[in-house]
């Protein structure tokens, strides 16, 4: 068992989750409740990573973040190291790749909140922030939680993008999915087997949890 790789993957998944939480809530609310020109286009682009081959995204990120590009140079001058072949580079890739998993469940959850409920709360003089905290978030909570679970599980399994922009550096970019691949190449079937079983278990827990949350009679909404 490659603990360094597992911990790295858990770090990446947690970081992706934390960064996408506010972004998902903001974008989910906007898309659920407002109509604007080009909304369909925005929704389509947010869903694009669902169908985009990971290697395609990996290729563009490699080209865009490499040391010779303006973005790559700007990042390097700011933080003193390159974005590709670093944990931060993986995080950027992971954020893009998980965007639809964050936005879509949250959007559905916010859409399900009856407008009367929000109007009533506003009429009673609730501030916007209080409305968000006390009414909207508790009502949309199952959607938000299932988005988080999906992001977490999806990040743990990410392979193509990581392989392209990561470089399999232990403790920095060698995630658990890459470590499994490495172990197979090293004829270490036992090692690959243990790590695969661990990922299978985590994935089953995650998907079970997300079904539990979204099913009626699962985690109750605040009434």
């Amino acid at each position, binding site marked *: 068992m490659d603990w360094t790789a597992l911990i790295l993957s858990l770090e990446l998944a947690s970081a992706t989750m*934390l960064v996408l939480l506010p972004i998902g809530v903001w974008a989910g609310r906007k898309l659920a409740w407002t109509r604007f020109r080009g909304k369909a286009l925005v929704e389509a682009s947010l869903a694009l990573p669902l169908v985009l081959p990971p290697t395609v995204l990996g290729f563009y990120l490699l080209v865009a973040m490499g040391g010779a590009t303006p973005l*790559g140079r700007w990042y390097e001058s700011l933080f003193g190291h390159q974005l590709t072949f670093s944990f931060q580079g993986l995080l950027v890739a992971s954020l893009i790749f998980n965007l639809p998993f964050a936005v879509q469940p949250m959007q559905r959850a916010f859409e399900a909140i009856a407008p009367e409920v929000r109007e009533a709360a506003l009429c009673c003089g609730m501030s916007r922030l209080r409305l968000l905290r006390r009414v909207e978030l508790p009502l949309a909570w199952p959607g938000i939680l299932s988005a988080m679970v999906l992001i977490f599980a999806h990040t743990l399994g990410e392979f193509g993008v990581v392989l392209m922009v990561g470089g399999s550096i232990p403790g920095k970019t060698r995630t658990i999915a890459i470590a499994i691949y490495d172990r197979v190449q090293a004829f270490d079937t036992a090692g690959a087997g243990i790590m695969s079983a661990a990922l299978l278990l985590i994935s089953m827990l995650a998907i079970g949890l997300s079904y539990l949350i979204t099913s009626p009679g699962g985690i109750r909404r605040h009434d």
Partner: protein
Amino acid sequence: MNVSGFLRGCAFAAYLALGFSATSRADAPVVAGAADLKFALQEIAAAFKEDTGREVNLVLGSSGDLYRQIGQGAPFRMFLSADEGFVFQLADAGKTVDRGNLYAIGRIAILVPHGSLLKADGKLSDLVAAVADGRVGKFAIANPEHAPYGKRAEEALRHVGVWERIKDRLVLGENVSQAAQFAASGGTQGGIVAYSLALAPAVARLGTCAPIPDSWHAPLRQRMVLLKGADETTRAFFRYMQRPAARAIMKRYGFLPPANR
């Protein structure tokens, strides 16, 4: 569970994860090595750690891939290529400290899994016969485009005149270590891989192998080089590679010492 409870949970998980990573071996310098070194280099790194108490992290891949990654700025401190051409190209591009040292001459070998219809015949005559009579379903080599051992395998197959006929039956490993995995795991009738991998215990128990005459292909002149920014540990490892202890391990894996040429 409520919102703030969940957030606190997340923060705690992140804290734990970050706390753990601080104590991991993420700070050891990264040494990039050609995939044919998979087992030999791991053994040498372990011996290096035992002798000096210092540690290096190994990243293994096809020399061409590692070359590309170094060009793109991968934070490697040392590069052990299976083909000196990549080292010279990096030196010309100003990515290295100098033009490096030859550390070994590599060999290729035919590797045949137990139960295969092929014989492990270093002269490849059984392979030639097998291609003609249809015994070869699939045959593994490393991708000749960026893996030196794949290129040499192609040259050897051309030398015996079966390249054109075996081409469509080849499965290409991303690097020679994956090719060895394909060759030994029973999915193919065998493959041409690095002799060093075929000799490793983990591979040797899966099949039989025979070295292929090295006059049939261009020599695998394996060169290593320190990359710009190499630290003291990496430099020590570079010197260690040339010591008798490391040379003995390399010899055990079928490499010829560079002085022979």
